[in-house]
């Protein structure tokens, strides 16, 4: 079901949030861990800024890298 839901994402899914943590490294680990726990494998931190209370992060899960087989194209083909 998740795959079907993600098939219309053009390339990636970004999660923008604020993580409560006590260092930038902890923030990174938690951000990546969050995405992995959601089932994403190709994940990266686009942006992180840590200060006192925690980290403002933008963490990304690539659904398709350039050159992949894009489901939103095949889905369109199958509809035609």
């Amino acid at each position, binding site marked *: 079901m998740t795959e079907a839901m993600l098939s219309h994402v053009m390339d990636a899914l970004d999660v*923008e*949030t*604020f993580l*409560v943590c*006590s260092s930038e490294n902890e923030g990174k680990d938690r951000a990546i861990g969050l995405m992995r726990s959601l089932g994403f494998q190709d994940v990266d931190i686009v942006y992180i*800024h840590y*200060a*006192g*209370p*925690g980290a*403002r992060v933008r963490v990304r899960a690539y659904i398709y890298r350039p050159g992949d087989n894009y489901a939103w194209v095949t889905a369109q083909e199958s509809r035609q």
Partner: protein
Amino acid sequence: MVTCLERRKILLVPLDPVHDIGLKMIRRGLDKAGHKTLLLPPDLPSEEIISMMSKEQPDQVLISRTLGYGVAELLARFADLADAAGLRDKMGLVIGGMAIRPELAAELGFDAGFGPGTSVEEVVAYVEGRPYQRDANKVKKTKADLTANYTYQYRHNAIGELLDRIADGILGWVQGKTSPAIQRSRLRDNLWDIEQWRLGNINKDFTEAYSALCDPIAEAYYRSGEVHPKTRQLRAEEIERLEAYLTDTKSRMEPAKVQHWEEGQPKVFIQYGTGCPFMDIAHIKLSEAWGADGVVHFDPSWGARTEGFIGDFLTHQEDGSVITPENLSWTKAGLEEYTLWQVRAHRGLNTPETVVLAGKLGADLTKINIAYGSLAAGTDPARLTVDGVESIKMAAKYNLPFDVVTNEELAGVPAHKAFAGMLIVAALGRKLGGRPILQPLFCYSPEVMISGQMEQNYIDFNAAKIKALRKIMDAPIWPGAPIGFLTQTEDRVQSSMTTSLHAALAASLRVDAISIASSDEAYSGGPIVAASRLDTLTAVKEGFRFFGEGRVEATSMADRWADEMVQNIEKVLKDVADAPSFVDALYNGILGSKEEGAYPGRGGRDTIQVE
């Protein structure tokens, strides 16, 4: 400066097709510190760099990489080549740049890795083998006095005379009148000892007399401990967790600044009021960490329509955080010492007592406006006039400057009428020894939507407001609240951008402070989230950085509209002065009519008593 013996030879290598700006900045820092540097051009093959390293035999090689594609493979190969050439143990190998993370450096066997955000000073310290003194570049922050350097002298004599006449009329009108709010505020002022309260000692005389002046909801709290039906008490373990969270977070706080040019850019306030004091404190901490200079407490609208305050540490899932001594006290405990704290008193049935509570609990600022509270916030004009004067007296007693907000503009009242009301309250403040701060709105108001003053740009009409006020009085100005109101959409980029541009305009006009929204300003489906608060703080910081001492320039329309505004304010003030009383003027629409969207409030009607 390092000595000859400590001088290092540094080879700087952009292992990148084009990017070498970062290395150039570092070279400048290293040269300034007395080291010998050699910067290679970008896009050299790794083999040629290795050959240069063999020839020059530097103490350190600083390699930079900006592009992220294939960075690990590229650097791993470079490290292998350095090993094969027998250079690995002869010199330090360090990587840095946008594509670098310290963990990547460790993984590939480099001596150190510097990622985005590294300062030149940090690299110089590393090269010199000394710990980086972060404190040396630490932002130093002190609590600002927004009213310093203002004389409150009138610059427009005719308007000044009218304002004095109206203010005298108001002071005469309130003579001998009192209200339940005034009586509660005097009880709070005289009988409520904050130190005893902190020790948990209940003053029964206060409680008895106070509860008799409350409406049934507040009275129930004092009689039986029942809290407002919309709220719940935070449990002991939640309070313990908050204490632990605060201690932990405060230990990691470092002052941060939004301003790039301290002298000319306004102090930046955020508004909190998630409904939960715990969440408020968490939002305050991150706003402070991102550079907010001040925070404004937003209370729920029902709080302003209830006679009397209840107590306890209360949370609820509605807009605005309940004012109780406990909630305010915890909020105060959460603030850094340099953060300005405003508790709004302006609009409801507890206005004077809010000022007293704010003063006793250590607030720095409050907010009072009789005209706005009467015409657009539901409180009876007569009641709020009596309460407002008492509030200003209390603000003066507790040394609390107060802003005079003009939110009736959002209901449709033209700016000049809202400003006339604001100036009357400021004149009262001036007479009663208070320190008012003028708060015009930077907003896309109904007036300009209809009349078209913002069809060309958002600059001129907002600039006209500031210019007009400056022609009338030498007083601090704090546009709000928030700036850019009604220009924001739900899109976080648009929302942050418009806030940033309005902030830049405010800085150009050299105002004293601004209140900013989060990028959730236009979203009405739920509470503001932490990340959205940081969006606008970051955007405002970038706006300040971009403009620096430069300015957003208004067109000649701003001056024309400012002159018109001053003339219109004078006309309105003449009408107010000629009315039987200021209260009559409020009831009769002189400061905003029903057609314009101003409705005299009913809260507290017929509650004024003879003193």
